[in-house]
């Protein structure tokens, strides 16, 4: 199968169908833009752009991707040439080849992988939990369980 860059390829997950991610198989060649609202595995060839903002892209062992990639998470087992931006994590597995600049929160590179490019770790700022509002301090005379004793102690200082 081969598609020309006429319009973006959009994959859509049928929730009734169940099963795993969408798969572009070994014999599939796509030239153009891919947008997906589900996890996607590419085991064929893709040239262009791949965008799966909230999902995971897997470049399978036979996959050859020459594209700009944006995804929540990317796993590379095959070949990927192009810049990659992930919100969460990129995994570059053993025997994978990645040439391009990476912008990610976390990265994992296995021994035996080939990587050429820039690695820019984007730290997601963790907002500190809002400080609890100060509670009004109860006066000893009204709320302390041993108010009489406290009052007595105060009296003794007079």
């Amino acid at each position, binding site marked *: 199968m081969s598609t020309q860059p006429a319009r973006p390829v959009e994959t859509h997950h049928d929730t009734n169908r169940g099963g795993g991610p969408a798969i572009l198989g070994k014999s599939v060649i796509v030239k153009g833009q891919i947008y997906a609202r589900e996890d996607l595995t590419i085991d064929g060839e893709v040239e262009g752009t791949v965008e799966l903002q909230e999902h995971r892209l897997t470049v399978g062992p036979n996959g050859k991707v020459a594209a700009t990639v944006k995804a929540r998470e990317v796993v590379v087992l095959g070949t990927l040439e192009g810049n990659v931006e992930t919100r969460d994590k990129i995994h*570059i597995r*053993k*025997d994978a*080849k990645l040439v391009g600049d990476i912008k990610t929160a976390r*990265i*994992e*590179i*296995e*021994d*035996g*992988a*080939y*990587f*050429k*490019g*820039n*690695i*820019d*770790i984007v*730290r997601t700022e963790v907002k500190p939990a809002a400080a609890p509002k100060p509670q009004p301090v109860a006066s000893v005379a009204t709320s302390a369980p041993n108010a009489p004793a406290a009052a007595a102690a105060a009296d003794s200082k007079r």
Partner: protein
Amino acid sequence: MVRAPAAFETRNSNGLSQFCSTLEERPGLSILDFAPASQSTVSFITDYGHRLYSDDFVHQMDQCFGASGDFFENQSNPLLVTRFLETALDFDDQSFDGALVWDSLQFLTPTLLPTVVGRLHRILRPGSSLLSIFHAEERVEEISTFSYRIQDHRTVLMAQRSRRKPAQIFNNRNLEKLFQEFSSVKFFLTRDHLREVIVKR
């Protein structure tokens, strides 16, 4: 395809320790690493808040000059040299704050080496450091080439990749001459016949 290196050995490195002192100055530096990409080096550099550019320089040399014919003679072929420089050293001027060159320069011939060192000088910012390692024994046919990883600020993990003929053997004097464009050159001679060199741009 790059194979996973065999078992790693650790060694203390004064050169690395000197190099790492510059990493602590401020976050957001750009560091160039010529070793095969590894999790430990990536984590070490990026944990400081720096960017890392990773490329296996020896692998690039093999791809350009080792495909056919003589590896050293090919380094005089203008077409191959142009391709090599475009593939391995095509960066903007002053785009890095530090370079980990490791042992890769030993395999460049006297014709090509000054060009490569000139490029390194150009792509480094003033004040930045370059760490390089050279074999110190003068009468050797072959030397080991290693895969280097940073374990901590003064420990390097090394795994032997192969044994190969060096293009030339260096002593302190010709290393000073090689890096004459840089502002300072500092040597650390180690017990395992390696000369670690820290060069300041």
